[in-house]
């Protein structure tokens, strides 16, 4: 697909919030700022609070210049500084389980994990929620672009992307606009970049109506010795800006867009958003030329330009390095020659990177960029001081300690309290909802469930993504996790699953975060890979609302505790706050990505029930757990009670069994049980394999509970008859409850004595919903 991004892109309106130099005729130099202490600056319009501005003045010992104000305002925004979340995110480090696998931890562009054989993997999920509501195509596209640059900035070759997505109510007239744009944007960018899209989620809920969650994840692979970090070391080393030219797009995006709600309840005019515009072709060239420069060991330090653009890249590189940095802003290649220095510093033009290169290697670095037709310019150098100094027309307009910009921003202890409505919500037990009374009603509700937008087949969406490019995709969408072959000789591979259930988290955020972790962990294990480490993308409402802040704090506590118990460290993550329209926050939505490693991808376990006669076993315990369930939503439009109970020890045991069974060839298919319960998993596996299933209700369990309960720590597996004894013995020996529930057979899904549904009817119900809504 050739998408004419250049011509169709909306021209970004000139942002009204850009600080003009106090006197139009005069450049606001540091000298001028010192001489004119009383000049008023538009700090409030740029999103700084009064005390934050006072602190900037205190740090500098004078008023900031317009350029300095631009830098502090974007870097101290919620999006860049994590000022509301920092105090709580520390738990991920403090409670981190010991892991030999972690090579680079939290704080870098992305964490790095050892997967053996000298390979390391970096992976991360980021949000691009607000831009994707304003301009769905470009918002989603640049979300993919940004996460991919994070991966290459670590020295890795990107090998796959995933997209956890949440949209408003499917029947709402605006949802179609957002869904179509986001899906086309992800496809338009990712497909053109040559990265297989191997997973993610699509969830609909009216709470996301005015604020979709567009999270983008990526995985990269490198050799251990190729890990690169964002730091500018070595006096005299050159700072090279390369990639796209700098334009007026996305100016102020970080401070305004990502950190404030769109509408001000006080009736003031809404701030005009500024969404960046992506060029995937430029990004593809950037990937190739960066990797070639890495391969020749030309790079000392590297940083991608994302939120806050050059402000972020220069201050972070300098802050992480040993010296200072001097930048000549005149040398930055521009798309628009009328940009002011403040705008150049704040621009979020996409597809740009910043590398620190030894002087003797600059020529070679530039030659590689030339080979790939990538514009590259030396814009500065590492100095022996500890200041970041930026010059414009020969005059100094920025003179700051980079640490105060990049790392020593404000930290807030936002007040939080358990919401007054939480108890009532939890008391509204889903167990009291009317249930199907006979087989006929069960049958009808099964069909409704698998046809509901959240449980329906999402091929209409995922078939717009290329999941095959690079030729290493072992498992992709509709499987429990995506899986990529890393080494063609040894068949070493990695798996990644992302999960999150906002309904569960709304009922209980601590449990909800652990449920997201449990599910992603289980999904990875179900493919036969061993879960190794996690990343997260925490999507919440306004941190200034104590209810939301409580949800956030609880979720982090839950996730950190869960990771410690499972032994899977958090390698990094992303926080997205202010996800709400007006006063209404989205469901707290912690999305967790679990990375697994598999020593031989040829033994991967798919979900498809493809062999007639194989035995179906349900692993784990089924209790009556309906709070937050898909059934309660689809049949009763209900959200209340407690989410399913978490048992991480059970998850670990189940994971071990699934991996062992894969290794020893005891199972031919496995599907984790999550939203929609057993019946959803069985239907998906049957449709994927094109075979039916005859199920029996085990003694002592209600057929309705068997089908729809969402008890955790469960999976359904298909066992060849020859392996039945061995598999049972293994589960018995390790203490995992295992129940034979049926056999792969025929052209129907049948629950004995209750109902049967032909596969063709299930297929129609499951596959036609999404195209009917959005096609």
């Amino acid at each position: 697909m050739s998408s004419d991004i250049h011509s169709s892109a909306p021209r970004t309106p000139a942002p009204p919030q850009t600080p003009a130099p106090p006197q139009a005729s005069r450049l606001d130099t540091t000298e001028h700022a010192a001489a004119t202490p009383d000049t008023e600056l538009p700090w409030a319009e740029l999103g700084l609070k009064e005390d934050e501005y006072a602190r900037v003045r205190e740090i500098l010992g004078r008023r900031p210049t317009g350029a300095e104000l631009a830098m502090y305002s974007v870097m101290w925004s919620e999006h860049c500084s994590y000022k509301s979340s920092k105090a709580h995110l520390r738990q991920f480090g403090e409670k981190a389980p010991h892991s030999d696998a972690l090579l680079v931890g939290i704080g870098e562009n992305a964490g790095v994990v050892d997967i053996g054989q000298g390979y390391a993997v970096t992976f991360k999920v980021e949000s691009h929620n607000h831009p994707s509501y304003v301009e769905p195509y470009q918002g989603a596209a640049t979300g993919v672009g940004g996460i991919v640059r994070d991966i290459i900035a670590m020295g890795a070759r990107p090998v796959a992307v995933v997209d956890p997505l949440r949209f408003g109510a499917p029947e709402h007239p605006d949802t179609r606009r957002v869904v179509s744009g986001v899906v086309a944007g992800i496809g338009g960018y990712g497909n053109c970049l040559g990265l297989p899209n191997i997973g993610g989620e699509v969830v609909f809920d009216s709470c996301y109506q005015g604020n979709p969650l567009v999270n983008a994840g990526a995985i990269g692979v490198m050799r251990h010795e190729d890990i690169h970090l964002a730091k500018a070391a070595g006096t005299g080393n050159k700072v090279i800006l390369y990639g796209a030219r700098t334009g007026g797009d996305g100016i102020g995006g970080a401070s305004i867009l990502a950190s404030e709600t769109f509408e001000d309840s006080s009736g003031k005019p809404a701030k005009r958003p500024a969404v960046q515009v992506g060029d995937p072709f430029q990004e593809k060239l950037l990937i190739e030329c960066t990797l070639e420069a890495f391969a020749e060991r030309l790079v000392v330090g590297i940083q991608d330009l994302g939120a806050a653009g050059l402000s972020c890249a220069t201050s972070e590189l300098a802050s992480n390095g040993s010296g200072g940095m001097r930048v000549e802003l005149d040398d930055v290649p521009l798309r628009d020659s009328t940009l002011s220095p403040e705008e150049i510093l704040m621009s979020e033009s996409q597809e740009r990177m910043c590398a620190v290169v030894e002087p003797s290697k600059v020529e070679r670095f530039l030659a590689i960029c030339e080979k790939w037709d990538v514009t590259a310019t030396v814009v500065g150098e590492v100095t022996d001081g500890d200041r970041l100094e930026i010059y414009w027309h020969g005059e100094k307009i920025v003179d700051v300690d980079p640490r105060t910009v990049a790392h020593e921003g404000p930290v807030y202890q936002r007040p939080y309290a358990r919401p007054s409505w939480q108890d009532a919500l939890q008391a509204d037990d889903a167990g009291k909802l009317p249930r199907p009374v006979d087989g006929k009603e069960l049958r009808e509700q099964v069909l409704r469930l698998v046809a509901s937008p959240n449980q329906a087949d999402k091929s209409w969406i995922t078939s717009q993504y290329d999941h095959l490019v690079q030729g290493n995709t072992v498992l992709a969408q509709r499987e429990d996790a995506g899986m990529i072959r890393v080494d063609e000789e040894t068949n070493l591979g990695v798996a990644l699953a992302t999960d999150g259930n906002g309904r569960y988290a709304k009922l209980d955020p601590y449990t909800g975060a652990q449920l997201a972790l449990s599910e992603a962990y289980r999904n990875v294990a179900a493919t036969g890979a061993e879960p190794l480490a996690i990343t997260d993308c925490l999507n919440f409402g306004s941190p200034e609302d104590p209810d939301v802040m409580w949800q956030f704090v609880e979720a982090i506590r839950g996730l950190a505790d869960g990771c410690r118990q499972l032994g899977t460290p958090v390698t990094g993550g992303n926080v997205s706050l202010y996800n709400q329209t007006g006063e209404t926050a989205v469901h707290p939505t912690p999305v967790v990505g679990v990375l697994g490693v598999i020593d031989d991808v040829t033994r991967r376990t798919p979900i498809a029930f493809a062999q007639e006669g194989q035995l179906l076993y349900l692993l784990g315990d089924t209790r009556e757990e309906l709070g937050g369930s898909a059934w309660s939503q689809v049949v009763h439009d209900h959200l209340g009670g407690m989410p399913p109970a978490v048992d991480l020890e059970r998850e670990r045991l189940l994971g071990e069994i699934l991996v062992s069974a894969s290794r020893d060839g005891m199972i031919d298919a496995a599907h984790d049980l999550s939203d929609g319960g057993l019946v959803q998993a069985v239907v998906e596996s049957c449709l994927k394999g094109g075979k039916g299933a005859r199920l029996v209700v085990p003694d002592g369990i209600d057929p309705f509970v068997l089908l729809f309960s969402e008890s955790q720590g469960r999976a359904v597996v298909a066992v060849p008859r020859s392996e039945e004894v061995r598999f049972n013995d293994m589960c018995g020996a390790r203490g995992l409850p295992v129940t034979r529930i049926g056999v792969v057979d025929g052209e129907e899904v049948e629950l004995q004595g209750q109902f049967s549904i032909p596969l063709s009817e299930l297929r129609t119900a499951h596959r036609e919903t999404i195209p009917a809504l959005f096609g």
Partner: protein
Amino acid sequence: MTARIGVVTFPGSLDDKDALRAVRIAGAEPVSLWHRDTSLHQVDAIVLPGGFSYGDYLRCGAIARFSPVMQTILEQARAGMPVLGICNGFQVLCESHLLPGALTRNDHMHFVCRDQKLRVENADTAWTVDYSAGQEITVPLKNGEGGYVADERTLDELEAEGRVVFRYLDGNPNGSRRDIAGITNAAGNVVGLMPHPEHAVESLTGPTTEGLGFFTSAITTLKKMVHA
């Protein structure tokens, strides 16, 4: 002697590594060619891979046609060298007028990535001799601009001369005229198609291994050419 099969990388080529792998699995020696090369480095056959050459911001393949490497390929193709264009490569071949017609935006306006059943209509081209006429194969398809169009006269001519090499079965994925998935030139050495045989060469990663025949066909053809 091992056949040397070159795969061209344009800026924006994406399936070049996949094509190189397919060449290797088929038993030939894969050779990477760069768009600025004027020499073909003694290759015996050429694959133009899928992707978005030069971003495809103009018409797909319209810029690639003018690259230095294409000038040499044009000469060699006219002299009988086997050339296969896959997806974007097919678009480049049409833009270069080595093959007639053009590829347009899918009729449903969406990018589509799925497994696609094809019928091999002509098993006599340089890239299909290892198949049999009428054979049905399944390989992945992924494109946003894969709708094959040509005027009626050209289409009639292609049909009459047996130059429709592949036809879509079980549903036309992009609105291609007469379900055409791939065509050849009159000499049978240049073949272009939208589906991706290079993604169906390993059971681990492909829906089938039925795409391998393209690459073994080229090897078979080259052997015959040497012996002729």
